[in-house]
């Protein structure tokens, strides 16, 4: 069996003869999808559904093969086609000679019978008047059943790479010549062909299904009371932190140095506490959080516990992080430097929280106190303006309607992929949370859910075949052949200077025909404007709410006007043509988001304006969303192409052909590159490119009826 390096060397050589002869094989078997609850480890749980089994019980699809793989004989040709216009699902067309020489042993040795229609699905059926067209064999119904799974492997010398795994769509039979033409789509078919209905989604969540951010699914109630502090300066007592007035402040007594330890605490009734909102008087203080739990009247009964269900016992909660310096009291979280603005802080390191009883206490410790002028000298003090400690109560609607609660927006994609049995994926975290719940009814296909998230985040989605296939063991129980493919959901590689996928460089000497670059000014707007949600703001001196007018044109919406690089640098190249692109989107709720939207639009226009197509010998590792470097002297092209479309073709017989056509955008052209760099800068400013998001363990198994 060759290695990847050997396959690369054979491909690059251009001499696909002898040991490097192009090879393609196909295998078929039938199977079905089973769906049930499955208990998974925490690392594989991406959503929580209140009111149902949980937290580790996940609704899960699993592909079950019903028979061993069988190799398809007489493969004449195969063609694959995949691009983002087709929702990232690859289609396959295969032509098979429907005549087989079946071996027999006669009186004088071995001979072969010529079996026309050997693989015809109705062979052996007693149709009209009990007249049978041949004897039924293992191919009966194979090219008729929707359950037929097709695996295609290809390579140079040996068929090293899986290039397609999917399910049968159609089979057309012809005679003279006797051929079967099969069309299939990859396992993404479970996304494109299934509605959000019945057990294609979670069976016990009735449609319309709703995805909601985990934090927005709770009602928050400020329950902090009875504030006490280690000290105060005489005129700023601890109770000021709970009065809801930013104008009042608790201030500790003054110290001679910044490293004195101060603390303030509040009591809470029986509550589920995961976070609190803090507006300090000073920034840059070091803060420790401690929790004293009681077992009195704990919600749901039993002792105080973590939200993961683990019992705590009465007393100061220890998470194994150590004690607050200079004390014997453990802390649950440390924040090295707090900001001088209102911030929501999680109460527990790593996420989650506590379900604690009556008169439990939450204490904040402070060091690195602020230097404050006081009566002709300086003192060091801690101070807080407001502190709200929240009891979280799951919203009634979330429990009754079994909302699907997620953290990162990409978790929605993972949940859907688990429903269709896809266990292998490359899903990048987006680093953003859902701003409001989104619902999908039974009319939507599962792919529409993923596409909706992709559109919100400007990510791409497609399904590629499994990484490997064990042709040596075709048994249905072989776990090496159970994967359904790899689902990719990520920021598109056109935006990345150094994507993780292996990149190949091809020269004009490697291409089968010349590169065909196309430059078009048609998609390029001279200005891009994004308009978001209407702005309303509270102003206590005027009234409860009124419309804020902002911007030079007195816009009532969040907005941004962007002049693309091609319009900026040399406006005369556009002949003074004024083309504008205006985008309205109610999801835009800040001027920053409007700016990001403008840049994404400009980037898309830039990609559309510089495209190219190349044809070269087929090499399966070069897939959709990859970058391929092209160096072509005749067209003076030296650029990477971001692949948006891939077609490949294999033809056997005396006129063998094994080639692929890649189409996409040239990303090293000046205006594409400059726009990408601007977009990356803007995203990196807020850490959106891309970032993992903290997620906590799931909660409330006791809510299960």
């Amino acid at each position, binding site marked *: 069996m060759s290695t990847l390096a050997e396959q690369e060397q054979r491909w690059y050589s251009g001499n696909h003869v002898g040991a490097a002869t192009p090879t393609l094989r196909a295998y078929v078997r039938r199977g079905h999808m089973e769906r049930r609850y499955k208990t998974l480890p925490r690392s594989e749980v991406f959503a929580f559904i209140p009111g149902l089994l949980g937290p580790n019980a996940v609704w899960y699809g699993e592909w079950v093969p019903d028979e061993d793989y069988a190799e398809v004989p007489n493969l004449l040709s195969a063609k694959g086609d995949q691009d983002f216009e087709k929702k990232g699902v690859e289609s396959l067309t295969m032509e098979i000679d429907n005549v087989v020489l079946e071996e027999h042993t006669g009186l004088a040795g071995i001979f072969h019978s*010529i079996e026309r229609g050997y693989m015809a699905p109705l062979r052996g059926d007693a149709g009209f008047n009990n007249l049978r067209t041949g004897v039924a064999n293992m191919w009966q119904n194979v090219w008729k059943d929707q359950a037929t799974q097709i695996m295609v492997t290809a390579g140079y010398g040996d068929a090293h790479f899986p290039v397609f795994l999917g399910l049968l769509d159609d089979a057309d039979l012809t005679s003279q010549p006797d051929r079967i033409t099969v069309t299939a789509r990859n396992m993404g078919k479970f996304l494109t062909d299934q509605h959000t209905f019945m057990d294609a989604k979670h069976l016990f969540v009735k449609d319309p299904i709703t995805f909601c951010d985990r934090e927005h699914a709770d009602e928050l109630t400020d329950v902090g009371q009875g504030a006490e502090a280690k000290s105060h300066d005489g005129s700023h007592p601890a109770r000021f932190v709970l009065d809801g007035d930013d104008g009042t402040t608790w201030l500790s007594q003054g110290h001679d140095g910044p490293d004195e330890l101060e603390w303030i605490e509040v009591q809470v009734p029986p509550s589920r506490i995961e976070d609190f909102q803090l507006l300090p008087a000073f920034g840059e203080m070091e803060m420790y959080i401690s929790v004293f739990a009681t077992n009195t009247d704990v919600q749901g009964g039993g002792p105080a516990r973590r939200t993961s269900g683990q019992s705590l016992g009465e007393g100061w909660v220890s998470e194994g992080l150590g004690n607050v310096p200079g004390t014997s009291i453990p802390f649950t979280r440390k924040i090295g430097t707090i900001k001088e603005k209102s911030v929501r802080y999680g109460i527990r390191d790593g996420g989650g929280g506590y379900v604690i009883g009556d008169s439990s206490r939450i204490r904040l410790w402070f060091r690195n106190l602020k230097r404050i002028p006081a009566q002709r000298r300086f003192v060091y003090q801690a101070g807080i303006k407001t502190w709200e400690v929240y009891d979280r109560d799951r919203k009634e609607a979330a429990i009754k309607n079994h909302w699907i609660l997620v953290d990162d927006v990409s978790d929605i994609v993972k949940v859907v992929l688990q429903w269709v049995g896809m266990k292998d994926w490359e899903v990048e975290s987006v680093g953003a949370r859902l701003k409001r719940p989104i619902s999908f009814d039974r009319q939507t296909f599962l792919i529409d859910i993923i596409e909706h998230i992709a559109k919100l985040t400007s990510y791409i989605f497609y399904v590629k075949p499994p990484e490997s296939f064990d042709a040596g063991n075709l048994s249905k129980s072989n776990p090496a052949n159970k994967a359904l493919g790899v689902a990719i959901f990520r920021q598109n590689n056109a935006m990345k200077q150094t994507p993780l996928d292996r990149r190949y460089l091809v020269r004009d000497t490697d291409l089968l025909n010349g590169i065909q670059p196309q430059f078009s000014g048609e998609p390029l707007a001279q200005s891009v404007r994004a308009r978001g949600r209407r702005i309303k703001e509270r102003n206590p001196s005027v009234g409860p709410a009124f419309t804020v007018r902002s911007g030079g044109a007195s816009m009532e919406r969040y907005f941004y006007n962007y002049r693309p690089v091609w319009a900026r640098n040399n406006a005369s190249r556009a002949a003074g043509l004024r083309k504008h692109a205006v985008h309205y989107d109610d999801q835009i709720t800040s001027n920053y988001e409007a700016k990001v939207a403008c840049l994404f639009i400009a980037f898309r226009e830039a990609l559309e304006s510089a495209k190219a197509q190349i044809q070269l010998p087929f090499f399966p590792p070069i897939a959709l969303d990859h970058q391929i470097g092209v160096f072509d002297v005749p067209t003076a092209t030296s650029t990477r192409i971001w692949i948006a479309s891939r077609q490949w073709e294999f033809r056997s017989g005396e006129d063998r052909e094994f080639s692929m056509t890649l189409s996409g955008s040239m990303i090293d052209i000046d205006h594409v590159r400059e726009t990408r760099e601007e977009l990356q800068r803007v995203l990196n400013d807020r850490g959106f490119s891309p970032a993992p998001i903290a997620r906590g363990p799931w909660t409330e198994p006791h809510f299960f009826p």
Partner: protein
Amino acid sequence: MPRTPNKFINPKTADEYEWPVNHSEESETGLQRSVSHGAKSGNGLVLQQADDQPLVFKYTGTIFHQVQVEEMAAWYALCRTQTVNFVDFAGDESEVIITAFRPVRHRTMRNPRDFANAPLWYWKYEIEMEVVRVISGIWAGIL
């Protein structure tokens, strides 16, 4: 030296048929490897090896007996559903499918060999056999 006739064998039933008259001429026979040359936009060509072209026996000869024509036509018809074995005068045996049998009549003053059934004519024929498996001969083990 005794004559060694060409022979058809039906492996299914062990029936055999010896040709009364062997073929007189053979066309070029052999294996050929197909290599396509894909044009490259730069230097050189991309070579892609295809499947070998099939081994085909193409013989021409003369038939004087009506029964031989009929017999060979029957063997051609048998190849609609199965392969047969062909053993030539040198003893080389192959499993073949007869893909063409084209007997053409020619007039003659007198056909003494089969005066009863073909008094005034004889046949010149072409026969083509595509080899499925070489059992013995120079290509045995290769095809």
